């Protein structure tokens, strides 16, 4: 560290030390991006919105026990039919539920654009559809 000692408490330096790299930046691609217009992707293992695969759930409720923010509720709606709702406003995206679940019912997606103007929309319900085999979301992103 090239330290220049002058009077105590006053070191000598040169002003405008950054000027070359600053001017160089004019000819470089900007490091930022026009975010909402340009899409940003999180890395593959990013912990975003949890997804619940209702057809696999056995209703053991281990995920509820381990969830640090009590964001999950599971309701029994029929014989071996469970429906889950995850409050994305409470969820801290720690993915502990995914780890706890013995049947791998919960998937973590890389979706991070979860903001809502209406708090009610933060609560995402995953229905167990009795007629169709697929799972659909009622609300949310």
């Amino acid at each position, binding site marked *: 560290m090239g330290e220049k000692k002058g009077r105590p408490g006053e070191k000598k330096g040169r002003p405008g*030390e950054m000027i070359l790299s600053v001017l160089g*930046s004019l000819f470089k691609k*900007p*490091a930022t991006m026009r975010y909402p217009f340009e899409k940003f992707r999180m890395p593959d293992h990013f912990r975003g919105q949890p997804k619940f695969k209702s057809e696999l759930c056995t209703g053991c409720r281990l995920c509820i026990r381990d969830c640090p923010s009590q964001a999950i509720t599971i309701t029994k709606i029929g014989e071996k039919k469970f429906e889950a709702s995850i409050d994305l406003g409470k969820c801290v995206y720690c993915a502990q539920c995914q780890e706890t679940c013995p049947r791998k019912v919960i998937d973590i997606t890389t979706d991070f654009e979860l903001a809502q103007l209406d708090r009610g929309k933060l609560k995402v319900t995953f229905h167990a559809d009795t007629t169709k085999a697929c799972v659909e979301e009622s609300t949310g992103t």
Partner: protein
Amino acid sequence: MNALLDLLRILVFPGMIFLVVMGMAGQYLDRKLYARLQNRVGPPWYQPVADLFKLLGKESVIPEEADKGMFRIAPVFALAAVITAFLYIPLWNARPVLSFQGDLVVVLYLLLIPTLTFFLGGWYSRSIFSTLGAVRSITQLFAYEIPLLISLLSPALLANTWSISGMVQYYAEHPYRWLFNLIGFGVGLITLLGKLERVPFDAPEAETEIVAGSFTEYSGRHLAFFRLAIDSEAIASSSLLAAVFLPFGMGLPLWWGVPLYLAKVAGILFVLAVLRTVFARLRMDQMINFCWRYVAPIAFLQVIIDLVIKEVF
């Protein structure tokens, strides 16, 4: 007919509306350059307009303790002073909208008014941050105004006239003599940073210390007027520097003259943007110390140079 033409010149081109449009373009240029110099994308071209309309559409809150009249009048006064000053500045030829012998001094004083309104607006906001900002504004004024004055007066000394258009004419008759004033130009650029309260001389509105200085309590259209006044002041001061220190090509026809003028102003704005990118903010005491210890003597040097040259030729 002539009166109508004069009115158009005052209100539209090259007067008020032209200045305001230029002000916003200048703000865009400055912000974009600042961003690009910092390796950022920067705002889109319509950002200054969007900001202006957003502010105009917002409620303007006036503090209960503030002097209401002063609070309201300060921004308008600032803008009016800048526009008036702009009318005296020759842009691409030696014929500004208004001109008389001694207008250089008048322009300098008119351009001083915005700073005074910052002080008054801040002082009469009666908020602690505004008051501190106001006091800093006025303290800083004494540090940069004298060197700025001296640096602008020395080319006038050489030209032996107190009229800006007269100076432009002189330098048109004696080409290349403006090159002797380059030191003064440098002083002018540095002090302009102080006048526009930009880094490193932005202590009066240092965000991390006193929130927004004088403008802390301003909002809505009053703030919009202040912002407009500051943007216009940047253009007016740059035009003044361009006219006084870069008086070449002033006799060109309109379609050559205007682009040349715009290029000069853009060049000055570019230098200002680079300067505010590479420094840290100076403390008030450091700023005053810097101005009096380095900038003022250099400005005096310019006076001496001009006096010597005047004797020689």
